[in-house]
């Protein structure tokens, strides 16, 4: 079976020239340019990156399970992309702001979003799981590519505010075809906005291989927009950390945007509603399993003489606890009150919505004499 042979260019699926600091076997590859950016990452720090990745992988598996059990409506797995997401989010400063798509579970988690926040939208109890200002992570974006412009606008504001924070925009390989992403490049470049465009090239946009979106390495898109573009092994958490730090520092120094292409792989389906066996070969998956982002960090730590067994044990426990918390939080999310559908349509009083709310309350009252529950301005997941 040769699925999608025409479009999946070898160039893009067979990782070649990219920044790599830890190879598939866990060997440390030295790189004069990028080593300094992770000079502070000792074994303990590596252990924390490992721990992050294991926990988000476990949370992701729990999300899939909850969906399979009917507790969530949908789940977009991140499995395979742990290094890309953890490496980049751990490069952020606290006051940096992330604009993500729907798949960046690890980003939200690492920014401290509580478990119920991670599942509320997939459970369908709320339109968003957290207050963006509290975690410096925007409401996740489903409209492909739209958030690239939001990150750019936010970064323009950072510049006008003389802030030394930066913004980061996460999007996929497929998203690079949407006009919004190119327009974000234009605006960011023109206004020298402190924004890092972080493209997770996970090889697939649902059933479409990246070769259908681009016959060229995505990082090379940057040059034409007067930005540096960097291609990094997205399954190497250390390399991702290094390049993201570098790009963020560039942004902070007022030198403008850059584009990172993290070459990685979506190990699971697009979402739990997807069936990848319809469009891709098992052999491809098998090849990418060899490049697992977590295994290689463990191998590296082993080589460094760390207590790998202890780390594995402790991490597995932490991951198990996190998963249990996620499950409990999920099951604890009850349906929001009926009239909360009218909350927050507008920030200011609005005669039209108020009239509809009042009428719908009367309608509900036909059934039980009172609206089912009082409206809650802060309705939804709590």
């Amino acid at each position, binding site marked *: 079976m040769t*699925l*999608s042979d*025409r*479009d999946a260019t070898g160039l893009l699926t067979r990782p070649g020239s990219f920044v790599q600091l830890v190879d598939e076997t866990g060997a440390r590859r030295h790189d004069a340019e990028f080593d300094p950016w992770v000079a502070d990452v000792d074994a303990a720090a590596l252990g924390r990156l490992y721990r992050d990745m294991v926990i988000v992988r476990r949370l992701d598996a729990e999300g899939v399970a909850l969906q399979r059990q009917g507790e969530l*409506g*949908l789940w977009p797995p991140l499995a395979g992309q742990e290094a890309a997401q953890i490496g980049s989010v751990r490069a952020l400063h606290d006051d940096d702001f992330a604009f993500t798509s*729907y798949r960046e579970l690890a980003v939200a988690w690492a920014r401290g979003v509580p478990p119920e926040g991670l599942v509320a*939208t*997939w*459970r*369908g*109890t*709320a*339109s968003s799981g957290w207050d963006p200002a509290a975690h410096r992570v925007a409401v996740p974006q*489903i*409209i*492909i590519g739209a958030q690239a412009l939001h990150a750019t606008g936010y970064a323009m504001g950072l510049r006008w505010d003389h802030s030394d924070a930066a913004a980061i925009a996460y999007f996929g390989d*497929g*998203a690079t*075809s*949407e*006009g*919004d992403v190119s327009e974000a490049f234009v605006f960011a470049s023109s206004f020298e906005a402190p924004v890092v465009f972080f493209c997770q090239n996970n090889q697939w*946009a*649902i*059933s*479409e291989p990246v070769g*259908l*979106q681009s016959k060229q390495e995505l990082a090379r898109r940057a040059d034409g927009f007067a930005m540096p573009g960097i291609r990094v092994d997205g399954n190497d958490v250390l390399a991702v950390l290094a390049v993201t730090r570098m790009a963020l520092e560039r942004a902070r120094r007022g030198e403008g945007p850059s584009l990172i292409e993290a070459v990685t792989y979506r190990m699971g389906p697009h979402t739990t*509603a*997807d069936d990848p066996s*319809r*469009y891709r070969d098992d052999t491809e998956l098998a090849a990418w399993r060899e490049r697992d982002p977590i295994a290689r960090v463990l191998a590296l730590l082993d080589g460094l003489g760390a207590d790998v067994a202890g780390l594995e044990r402790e991490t597995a426990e932490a991951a198990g606890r996190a998963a249990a918390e996620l499950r409990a939080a999920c099951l604890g999310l009850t*349906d*929001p009150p*009926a*009239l*909360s*559908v*009218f909350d927050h*349509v507008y920030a200011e009083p609005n005669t*039209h*919505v108020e009239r*509809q709310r009042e*009428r*719908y309350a*009367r*309608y509900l*009252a*036909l059934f039980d004499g009172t609206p089912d529950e009082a409206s809650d301005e802060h309705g*939804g997941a709590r």
Partner: protein
Amino acid sequence: MTTLTLGKALNRGLRNALAADDRVVLMGEDIGTLGGVFRITDGLQAEFGRERVVDSPLSEAGLIGTAVGLAYRGFRPVVEIQFDGFIYPGFDQIVAQVAKLHYRSRGAVKVPITIRVPFGGGIGAAEHHSESPEAYFAHTAGLRVVVCSNPADAHVMIQQAIASDDPVLFFEPKRRYHVKGEVDEEASLADAKPMGIATVVTAGDDVTLVTYGGLVQTAKDAAVAAAEDGISIEVIDLRSLAPVDYPTLEASLRRTGRLVIAHEAGQQGGVGAEIAASLTERCFDFLEHAPVRVTGHDIPYPPAKLEQHHLPDLDRILDGVDRVLGRANSLSEVEA
């Protein structure tokens, strides 16, 4: 007659269209190997090849804009928009180009583009996956807007839309994709009822209940329920939102004098507003009550667990029927 789901009926209709005219090309995201996220194009790429059933890059403006270029070249592109909420990036190409090109070129360039849009809610989906954007297009001169509600119509109407020399926005009620019905696959298109004509799906005398898409079945159920109460509802499936088949609606309303219009889209400026206003103009002297609209609220589509409080359902439609009949209803005190 074959029993087919609505989704399969569309698939067979598309297949016929591809087979009948080699200028027909299907384009969309994931429509090839995958057969579309709803499998509406399942098997068609395997049968007709990659140049007739085209997986496109992820860009709706790109899809529609290249379809315009293909129309210049004499093709009849059929574009799939993956979900209702993803049509907006292509809005400019639809409104400023697709809708206007025949007019702008003084008839020199035909734009036989069909834009298929799975639409509406009721499937517990995430945001942007349950929208009802049809009113935007019904307000856009130069477009035709049709909506199928059952397998038989779906099978015929998709072929009619593709055969039409006008651009057609073709809405498919995604929550009805899996519902089965009888389809006459042999019937000739030439004899079929034109897609611009509405269908009286349940005859009745007391109230004219007009709707389209996913709510047609709900309206039929409402008619059955009302009948038990001795109320006779005539249910009309609009099928075409632009132009609207007013003769059929008028004939009904002149008899019943009472109009209820139901749709999932918000009320403010929805298709129901146009129909209420137009039928009031046309039938004023026959009206016993102001037309009643039963619609989604004017809110962004709510999270899945709340959608049943947004979407009109059988009870809400019956409440609307009670209103138009002056029977006890949710607004009795308010409107007394």
